[in-house]
Structure formats: structure tokens, C-alpha cells
């Protein structure tokens, strides 16, 4: 167990290091002059040169990379070129919104998908099963941004139950939560369509096994067999997909925040890319990568918690 944690921590750091190299290289190879995009097309050659010097763009790539890493380790990602404030401040302001959105999206996804998937497996081959399979097929086929627009048209424009977009800030908790409902649903519906299918097939596979017959032979109710014996044993594939989906949800916030005008990281990364705001984009991509790698790390820990057989093997 200790060895496992040690190995995972090393690979966590190495992955982030690899990501940092790729991010830095890509951002520096891409065509486009940050100085030019900051000052505009009318800028004089002297002003551009001065700004390039100020931004450190004339330094060799390697020393720029090392300086960036040294800062990043201390939480200093430089000054945003378009917002003119430290990148870390920009991120700190917007992180809570995106994290709330991703987590609430994930929670709704898991609850919806596991309930539907287990119900489908329990009614295998009957109407309930076909209904869930049909809905999930529909959910997989529909793109999240399009679903968002439909949700806005129905619940915000037509029924006027929920705001169509925007975010009032955390100082008004009730309004803040209300404004997150539609984005959460838009994120969760598509993801839960996939996860419900995984849950169903994993549960069906477990239901055929001998120890489920043993549980039935002990006179347990169908519900007990399903939730206490089938589901826990069906969790490994479910958790695997949840880990991948969490990554998809975090990146999915880029689209959803833009559709719903939410001031989160997704919108920030969109704007910074448009503005060629190198320090901000680099910091955000690193942050997203760190979130994804952390999610995978948690998934690995969950495997151990779910299946005691893995502990003896690892």
C-alpha cells in the first residue's frame, strides 16, 4: 500500500512535468506574436520590440521554460497579458465556480446513471430496460451545447423557471445555485447516458455469477441482492468510467460556461486563447491536466477500496 502510494505520487509528478513540456512547447511553436496581439496591428516596431523584451520573449526557450516552472512550483504563473493581473488571482476567482459545476455535474451523473443502469439490469429484456437503453442512446447522440440551448429555451425562455445564464456571485447563494442548475443538468445528462450503459452491462455481468446465486439462495430480497451484492461488485468498470468522465466534465465546462455566460475557468481559458494570453493559457492547461491526473489517482485508490483482491496483488 505504501509502495503503491509512492509509485503513484512519482507518476503524478512525472505526468505533470510531461504536460508542462508539451504545453510550453505548443504555446511557443504556435504562430502568432503575443506582443502584436496585445498592442494591436497599429503598434510601432519599437513598441513591439520593447514589449517582447518586457515579456521575456527574447530569452532562449529553455531558460524561459525553467523560469516558468520555478514560478509555477511556488504558485506564481506570471502576469496575465490581457487582464494585467497575476494569473493566480484570475484562477482563484474563477476556480470555485468551475469546481462546483464539475462536482455537481458528476454527482448528478452518478446518481442518475447508477439508478437507471441498475434498474435496467434488474428488468433485463423488459420494457424498463428498453426504455433506459433508448433514452441513453438519445443522450449519447445529443451534443451538450445543443442540449444546453434546448434547456435554456424551455426552462428559461418559455417557462421562466430558471435564469438563462449569467452568475450573480456567491454572495447570493440561492440565486447562485439556481443559475447552476441548467448547466449542471446539461453536463450531467450526456455523461449519465454513457455511464448508465456501463452500469447496466457491468451489473448484468455480475448478476450471472455464482455468488449472486448464493445470495439468492440465502433468501435475500431482490433489492438487497441488487444493491448489496451486485452493485458493489459491478463498481470497478463504473468507477473507471467516472474517472474518465470527470476529466470530460472539467473540459466540458469550457463549452457549457460559454453557453451559459458563467465566469469560470472554462470561459477564462476560451478568452485567454483568443487573446493569446500565454501565461494564463499555460497555467490553465496545467491546472486542467492536474485535475485529470488527480481524478485518475483517486480512481486507483477507489479500486483498492472496492476490491480487496487488488491489495494482495499490488
Amino acid at each position, binding site marked *: 500500500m505504501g509502495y503503491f502510494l509512492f509509485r503513484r505520487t512519482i507518476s503524478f509528478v512525472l505526468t505533470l512535468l510531461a504536460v508542462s513540456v508539451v504545453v510550453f512547447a505548443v504555446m511557443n511553436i504556435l504562430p502568432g506574436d503575443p506582443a502584436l496581439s496585445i498592442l494591436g496591428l497599429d503598434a510601432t516596431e519599437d513598441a513591439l520590440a520593447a514589449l517582447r523584451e518586457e515579456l521575456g520573449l527574447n530569452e532562449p526557450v529553455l531558460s524561459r521554460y525553467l523560469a516558468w516552472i520555478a514560478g509555477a512550483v511556488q504558485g506564481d504563473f506570471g502576469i496575465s497579458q490581457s487582464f494585467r493581473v497575476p494569473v493566480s488571482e484570475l484562477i482563484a476567482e474563477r476556480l470555485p465556480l468551475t469546481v462546483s459545476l464539475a462536482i455537481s455535474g458528476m454527482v448528478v451523473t452518478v446518481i442518475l446513471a447508477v439508478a437507471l443502469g441498475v434498474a435496467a439490469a434488474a428488468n433485463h429484456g423488459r420494457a424498463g430496460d428498453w426504455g433506459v437503453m433508448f433514452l441513453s442512446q438519445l443522450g449519447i447522440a445529443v451534443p451538450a451545447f445543443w442540449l444546453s440551448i434546448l434547456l435554456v429555451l424551455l426552462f428559461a425562455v418559455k417557462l421562466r423557471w430558471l435564469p438563462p445564464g449569467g452568475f450573480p456571485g456567491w454572495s447570493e447563494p440561492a440565486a447562485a445555485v439556481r443559475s447552476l442548475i441548467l448547466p449542471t443538468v446539461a453536463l450531467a445528462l450526456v455523461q449519465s447516458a454513457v455511464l448508465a450503459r456501463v452500469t447496466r452491462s457491468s451489473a448484468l455481468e455480475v448478476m450471472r455469477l455464482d*455468488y449472486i446465486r*448464493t445470495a*439468492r439462495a*440465502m433468501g435475500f430480497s431482490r433489492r438487497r441482492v441488487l444493491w448489496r*451484492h451486485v452493485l458493489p461488485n459491478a463498481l470497478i468498470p463504473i468507477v473507471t468510467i467516472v474517472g474518465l468522465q470527470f476529466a470530460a466534465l472539467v473540459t466540458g465546462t469550457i463549452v457549457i460556461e460559454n453557453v451559459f455566460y458563467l465566469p469560470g475557468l472554462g470561459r477564462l481559458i476560451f478568452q485567454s486563447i483568443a487573446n493569446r494570453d500565454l501565461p494564463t493559457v499555460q497555467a490553465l492547461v496545467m491546472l486542467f491536466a492536474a485535475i485529470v491526473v488527480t481524478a485518475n489517482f483517486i480512481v486507483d485508490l477507489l479500486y483498492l477500496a472496492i476490491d480487496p*483482491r487488488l491489495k494482495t496483488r499490488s
Partner: protein
Amino acid sequence: MIEAAALTVDMGAGQAVREASFVIAPGDRIGIVGESGCGKTMLGLALMGMVPDAGHVSGSLMIDGIQMVGAGEVTWQRLRARRVAMIFQEPMAALNPIKRVGETVMEPMMVHLGLGRDAARARALELFREVGIPDPEARLRQFPHEISGGQRQRVLIALALACDPGVLIADEPTTALDANVALRVTQLLVGLAARRTMGLVFISHDLAAVARATERVMVMYGGDIVERGATDEVLAQPRHPYTRGLLSARPSSGNMRATGGRRGRLPTIPGSVPPLAELAPGCRFAGRCPVELKVCNGARPPRQGNMICHRAEEGA
């Protein structure tokens, strides 16, 4: 107390069990023998109400005075574990791999008997001792993959005994175990049946194990109970051609003598058990029977005394 009369399991393609009638009283030890696919397991499952969805059960099955043919799932749930319990062939696969074996054994006591955790744990410990699990305290906390096949079968027996059932159905309980362990598990089951005056249904194709474990035996072929009687009599003087085939197909000193003491091939019953849909409408054994009459394939043989055979009156 189980009383079956003309109990039939129809799988659609054919009858996996055809008009089985028998009584299992407290303390009875009954063996069911036959090749794979003869309906032994299906008969066991029928006694648990666990016939697959495609199967249709008819006839009469009284368990402790309640008619269970046509009973709903919830009625069966009240009987399972408490009146009739069953252990299955593969101890490796029959235990929930992510639960500690102690928890597995405690669960039915907490669910059915309303015991608290401590009481259930104490009972589980007692049961582990009763079924001869060494160092039971430590075993309670282990997972199935951490203990041997023989130990797992003992855990499954402890689980089956958790709610003190009147009848225990053991489906090939020793087939997956090596001979030494199998012998001890068989002895354990016999001892438990005697001590608890519990009915034991011992399903096996291992005739030696059946001889040790049971007082009465039913020989099944193609869903029919073709011969029955006291175990020692049936095994010593088989009358039905199928039983004779079964007995001659096992290694014994008699076989060796027949081949003049040389290493010879064991006799076999020619052919194999046909799938349900292809079973002969008359005598199920027609086509493989060495002493077949013209009538055998067409008409169902009469039940005469302890066997179902057209040649019963001639003593086959």
C-alpha cells in the same frame, strides 16, 4: 419436511424433471446420482424455487406443509435459508469476493433472524467451529481469495446453516475438491445432518461419496428418477440398466478382475445424455440401453416398485 408429488420442471424444450415424487423427512440423507444433464441440479433448484425464468414447475411440492408450486418469489424468500438451504458446486466462485467471509455468514442472520452485529458474529464463530474451520476468529476477517477451496466449502456450509434450515441441499459439494478434502467435507455433512436432525440432499455423480453420505438414493436419468432405494442395496444390486451402467463405469477391483487384472479400459455407457429436446418420449434411456425392448422407445415405462423400466417385471 419436503413432500414432492409428480414434481415436473418443463424448460420449454423438454422436461428437465419428469414427475418426481419423494419425501425428505428430518434427518433423512438422500443421494441423487446420475450423469451431467440428467436433471439432478434442476431438481435441487426446484426445491429452492430457483428454477431459471424459462422453466415452468408443475405437480406438487409441499415444504413444511405449504404448497410451493405456483408460490411467488416473496414466499420463496421466506423459506430459503430458514427451511431449505443449498450449497453449490464451485466453492471458488460461490462466495462474494469483496466481502469478508465472516460478514457473508453474518448477513442472513442479521437479515432473517434480526440478530445484531455482535450476536451474529458470535453465532458465525460458533458455526465456523461446528464446520471445523481452524482458527475461526482469524478466518472471520478474511476474504474468500485468502482461504483454500476446502475452507471455502466449509464457509459455504456454515452460511447454509446460518438460519438453521430443516433441509440442506448440497449440489456436487465435493466435486471441485481434492479427494482427501472431499472425504472430510462429506463426513462433515453426514455429521451435521445427524446432529441437527436435518434433511440432507446430496447431489453427486461420485458414487463412492454418495455411498458414504446417504441412506437412500435416487438415480436420475433424463429427468426421470429411474431407480431408488436404500443406498447400499441399490449400489450393491443395481436393477435398472442405467444404474448398472453407472456402477460398472467406475474403477473398482471388480473391473480389474473383469480384464484379468491387466490394465484395461473401463466400461462406459455408450453415447451421452441427449439434450432435453431430443430425449426419447418413452423410456428416457432408450437408445443407450443395452437390454432395450421394442416398446421402450415409444411408451413410458411403468413405475414398478423402486424403478421405472419396461423390464422391471422380469427383473431387467
